[in-house]
């Protein structure tokens, strides 16, 4: 686990989230829910902002996404305020000090006084920069994973088993081939291949007797490779022929970009799940990333449920 603690991704997630010492916990509230209203005016504003950036108005699905994002942003903002993030976050306070200096009547260089002045003017609730910072802080906080979340060996094993497809080592074939070069043999190529194949089969010559007929192939005679790699080496169609072969006999001739091949498949292995030790770094990174995303998603859903959301419908478009 010491290795996991040095993982850059973990630092990345934890550093971001460590700005607030906060562990998300969300319960449903009692009584009447506060409401969030996205009126037609809001919709129009979202449409305009999009159009300004992209040059064209948003398509229907895009507009719905914009509305959803706006609701989420409002939820996150209110939750951040409810938790007093605006009083604890250094970046927010720094911003308020600056704003206090710009707009307040207070002239003293006393930072606390400047911040107080900004708050008195309601800037903690109206300044766009503060708002965005609070939204992002809330986002980070709700998706926070920390050292206490590090998965156990069993967690990782289970995750690897569950996501076996993602981490699978590809199927592979071990083979020896005899190459007959189109460049060297020209018109005699098919006949040469057929005759050699017949001779090999008749004599029962296996490849491990260290003899061969044929031409020399630049990438060698022995391969231990997944189908995708065989396709890249020999060209399209080669892997399918290997896949269809019964191991322990000569097959062919198989066509490649270079000529014909007589192939002896020693063994084929199906795709398999690797040992955790071999993929620990990848599994852990993926696990942490997914844990963080899922936690943020769940937290946002829980928070959203605490509000009564009212949106102007699409019919009000263009009014």
């Amino acid at each position, binding site marked *: 686990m010491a290795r996991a603690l040095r*993982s*850059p*991704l973990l*630092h*990345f997630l934890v*550093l971001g989230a460590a700005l607030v010492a906060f562990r998300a916990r969300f319960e449903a509230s009692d009584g009447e829910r506060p409401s969030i209203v996205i009126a037609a005016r809001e919709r129009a504003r979202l449409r305009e902002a999009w159009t300004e*950036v*992209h*040059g*064209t108005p948003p398509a229907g699905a895009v507009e719905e996404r914009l509305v959803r994002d706006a609701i989420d942003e409002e939820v996150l903002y209110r939750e951040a305020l409810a938790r007093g993030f605006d009083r604890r976050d250094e*970046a927010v306070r*720094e*911003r308020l*000090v*600056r704003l206090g200096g710009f707009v307040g009547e207070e002239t003293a260089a006393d930072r606390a006084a400047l911040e107080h002045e900004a708050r008195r003017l309601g800037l903690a609730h109206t300044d766009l*920069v503060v708002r*965005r*910072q*609070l*939204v*992002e802080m809330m986002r980070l906080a709700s998706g926070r994973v920390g050292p206490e979340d590090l998965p156990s060996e069993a967690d990782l094993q289970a995750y690897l088993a569950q996501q076996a497809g993602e981490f699978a*080592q590809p199927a*592979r074939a071990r083979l020896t081939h005899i190459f007959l*070069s189109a*460049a060297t043999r020209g018109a005699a190529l098919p006949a040469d291949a057929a*005759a*050699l194949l017949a001779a090999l089969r008749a004599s029962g010559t296996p490849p491990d007797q*260290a*003899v*061969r*007929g*044929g*031409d*020399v192939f*630049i*990438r*060698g*005679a*022995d*391969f*231990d*490779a*997944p189908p*995708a*790699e065989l*396709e*890249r*080496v*020999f*060209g399209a*169609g080669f892997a399918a022929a290997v896949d269809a072969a019964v191991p322990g006999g000569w097959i062919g001739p198989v066509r*490649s*970009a*270079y000529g014909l091949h007589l192939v002896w498949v020693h063994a084929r292995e199906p795709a398999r799940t*690797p040992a955790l030790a*071999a993929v620990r*770094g*990848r599994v852990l*990174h*993926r696990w942490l990333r997914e844990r963080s995303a899922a936690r943020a998603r769940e937290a946002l859903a829980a928070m959203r449920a605490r509000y009564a959301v009212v949106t102007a419908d699409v019919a009000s478009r263009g009014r």
Partner: protein
Amino acid sequence: VREAAAAILVMLAVGAARATPPWQRTETREPCRSSTLLRSPYFGDLHIHTRFSADAYIYGTRVGPRDAYAFATGAAIPFAGDDEAQSRSARIDRPLDFAAVTDHSEFFGEVRLCDDAGSPVYDDVQCQLLRQAEPPEEQRRATVAWLFPAGLPRPEHHHICAAPGVDCGGAAVSVWQEMQAAAEEAYDRTEACTFTSFLGYEYTASPVGRHLHRNIVFRNHHVPPSVSSYVETAGGGIPQGFWSAIEATCLDAGTGCDAVIIPHNPNLSGGMQWVDPIDASEALRRQTLEPLVEMHQVKGNSECRFDRLAGVGAGTEDELCTFEQLAEAHGGPDEAPPPIDRYPARNMVRNTLKDGLAFERRLGVNPFQLGFIGSTDTHDGAAGSVAESGWAGAEGNNDSSPARQIAGRLRANPGGLAVAWAEENSRDAIFAAFRRRETYATSGTRPVVRFFAGDLTPVACGSATFVRDAYATGTPMGGELGAVRGRRGPRFAVWAVQDAGTSEAPGTGLQRVQIVKGWVDARGATHERVFDVAGAATSAGVDPVTCAPRDAGASELCAVWEDPTFDPRERAFYYARVLEMPTCRWSTRVCRAAGVDPLSPDCATQAAAAGSPFTGCCLGPGDDPFLDPLVQERAWTSPIWYRPDGIARVRGGVRYGAKPGTDRLAMRLTLARLPRKLDPRRRGLEIRVSDDDDILAVTIPRRAFVRAGPGRWVLGRRVGPVRAATLLLDGRAELRLVTAPTDLARAERAPHLVTVAIRSGTYQASHTRLWDVRGGRLAPGGR
């Protein structure tokens, strides 16, 4: 059958067993199932930008490093459409074996902060410039505003970094950590070895628009905690300030960090990519830190340049040097491209290599001993997206439509690939290939090319032991040679096989193989010559409908060649250039889809009907110095350098004793010409014999050799394990040494590659061959 039976050949035993590769494993991983001592070609891309690069972000690219590695391994990723919405999508034609994401390190922090809605500078004008979607013709303002500091002599971070509560350094570290996380997630550490990710980034010094850009590629995950860039290192010079930072934070840091620095597209450097070295030690520093050059990429080819309308080249008469040339010579503002006779010579790598020989003649060290790679320089995160057919572009919304591609990007091309000859697909193995320059560049296709030089007596085309014999009696691409056969000169063996292609796009056959020679004569003047060594300069053009070459070309070409102009006194380099048959260029395919056929006599009429963006479609050999509707894809192997004062021959080897501790190394090493710096009175002599370990590493201090006659020196005392040594210096140089009985069990008793290297002051030379085990001895197998 008779023929086949007669051709029965003894199976190649080497490579079947797992033998010691000449590098050490520096990371925790499974060894690869598929591994071979005599190496396989691995195809990769070492130049990839994502949204962490300010310019890529401005072009509308929003994918990150994780997406780039996913693209390299076969996943589809989104590309920016006209309005920068991520409305396009593409996938690679076939996966890569390795890749490095190399975002511009200068503004990591700024880009991250401007991309983060919670940052206090999110609404700053600088940030809005980055995010604002703009048509390509209006992007210049934003790009210049962002990249401007990279062109200043005293660059600073953008003003947003000075805002209160803003930590650009911390933000840059968070980007670097995200890049590390993405690379780790993409790296296959299992025995399947399906993909290798490398960590890296781009250093982007651009004084007055001269691109003196370099990528750094790290060997493993032991990387510095933060990146270095032009902004922090400008005071130390370009690129010396960057070199110093990398030496301090990586190479000399004692953390297990290792890296190579790769200059790229010197064609935009205004001749400044490689300036004259101030002395021999700076030349050696450059040779050590910068072993490779990225010679082909999206922004043009940098091998050599020939203007076909003027009938003149930049230091060359090679008419194949019209290939994928940009018009301009640097990225500076609003200057017309220079005429060919004023084109800066060292913008082109062949000229730089020739100058390197001239410097070596004067200084004893070649500062420009550069192996070759290609890569893309994609700004779409589209690692290895090099197919001419269906090219999705490389610069975000600049390539979002056929009209934009043809009107604005006609001289761009899909870029190339880096190919490394390595034992297996792992970071250590491929990085070791970078270090020894056993690499080649392609213009995007995947031919397989072997190139060796040396004695090569047993090497013959068609021989089953071609590769083994070549490693035993010669050096592969990227290496160096002494006077291996005296006045007769080395033999060269080149073996090229065409790209296998894909089911949609079959590979193209080969037209010919050339050997390009550069040399410096006794007066210090440099020369070059190109020899056709296999195939011939024939072409029947392409099928006007399918674009397939009318003459299919050869699936395989091979030659063993000797240089008829060889002069043992002249320093020289030789590299192989492999040419495919011509096919349709990407632009020809795009133009045709728009109803404009560059190959048709009616092209101009069709272009007029299709609209003004498409007039460029009809440019070709008749009216443009470089453009051609056909493309002759090609590969360039790293050069092999002939050095009169290089190691000509190594005799002797390890004799294993009957009991532990009784092994001996006895060796006779010959140099045809005495290196100027080799003087046992004035300088020590370092001798190293190594595979993955040091078999012998000893420094014989100056004055330890005692004069025993004219030109004859003997070791007056035992030095380390060396019991006796003789140095003969009579115009030639010969070193004989023998160790006392000692333990040399670390020299594995199996055929493997062994390097003998000597160094004295700034003089150094090396000799790597496949050593074989015979009768209790491990020794160089060939002559």
